[in-house]
């Protein structure tokens, strides 16, 4: 009788552990993927979009009162991605995430080389010729940064200060002049 109870108690505990792990490992990533799919459907891939209110991209804008957000879903399966950034002279931060929400790379206004630069994303070690070709392609700037993502898909988020009207205007102008596209295009 006791061993039967122990068996069912152990079975219940193991079921609880399995359910717990399954939930943590699979449910949030699936919920997040649904959000990414919505952004993809609305904006496409390898394209920078301002996260305006009411858009799918706005769902990742957690602090819209103090920051303007621009997002670019990327897929590096057909080549490296190039972000030609023109950034304002105030706080901004660019972060590259994988599709599970982990940060791959981060850069802010104090770390960036200049107000205008190109950021290249490669999913793996590129051959040196590919870097030279990308840097020489149309639209590149002299200030190039190369990032190895280790993943083919992910999302780039640019957050720029928007705590007052002046900051908002500067950020909006800069982000409208920032692009995200395949380096080969």
């Amino acid at each position, binding site marked *: 009788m006791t061993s039967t109870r122990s068996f069912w108690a152990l079975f219940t505990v193991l079921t*609880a552990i399995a359910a717990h792990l399954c939930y943590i*490992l699979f449910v949030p990533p699936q919920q997040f993927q649904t959000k990414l799919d919505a952004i993809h459907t609305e904006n496409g891939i390898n394209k920078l979009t301002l996260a305006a209110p009411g858009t799918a991209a706005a769902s990742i804008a957690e602090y819209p009162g103090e920051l303007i957000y621009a997002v670019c879903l990327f897929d590096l399966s057909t080549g490296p991605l190039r972000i030609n950034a023109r950034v304002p002279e105030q706080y901004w931060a660019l972060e590259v995430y994988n599709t599970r929400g982990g940060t791959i790379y981060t850069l802010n206004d104090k770390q960036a080389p200049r107000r205008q630069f190109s950021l290249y994303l490669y999913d793996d070690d590129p051959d040196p010729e590919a870097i030279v070709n990308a840097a020489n392609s149309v639209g590149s700037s002299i200030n190039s940064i190369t990032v190895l993502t280790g993943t083919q898909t992910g999302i780039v988020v640019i957050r720029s200060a928007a705590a007052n009207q002046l900051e908002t205007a500067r950020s909006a102008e800069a982000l409208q002049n920032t692009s995200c596209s395949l380096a080969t295009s």
Partner: protein
Amino acid sequence: MNPSVRFAVSVLVGVTVGIVSARYMTTEQSPFFTEQYGNWNNWPVAGNPANNPYTQAKFIANGQLPEHFSEVLTFYRSQDDEGDKLTEDCTYLMSINRPTARRWSISLTGNSGGSPQLMTQDDIISMGDKVTVLLSASPQPGNWLRMSNTDDPRVVFRLYDGDTITAQGPTGGTLGLPSLTRVSCS
């Protein structure tokens, strides 16, 4: 008890406990992966590629991409200094020495949706180093954050330039975070 009934009950109990515990561990009240500074909570490895699955789940389940902790440190609280849950029936006084971070903000959010009430370093009216903000459903003199239609009021304090703040180290174990005292209740 019939073995198939036992099986069904065990699975039901196991799955329920597993999911409820998983959901709890990704809330701000969870003591497991949050860092406590008084009544303020912080997810210290937010945005880190090597973060644990619980921190990752906490953010992405809500569709949020956490800023890397070197960019912004975000602190949350839903209790006053006495440990009582915040309610819009009361007025609270938030008090802090002006932060040294290059940017900072205080916002008030709730579960009922709508835009959070926000104050940044530019909005604060302050004569000296001491900054005080009143949180209340009714208008207050000076710095006022309106509490209204908030089922579950939560104060969010954000310090930009997380690296610098972290390097400065905790001040008395609190990082110089604001106090929040209840002034009155209706």
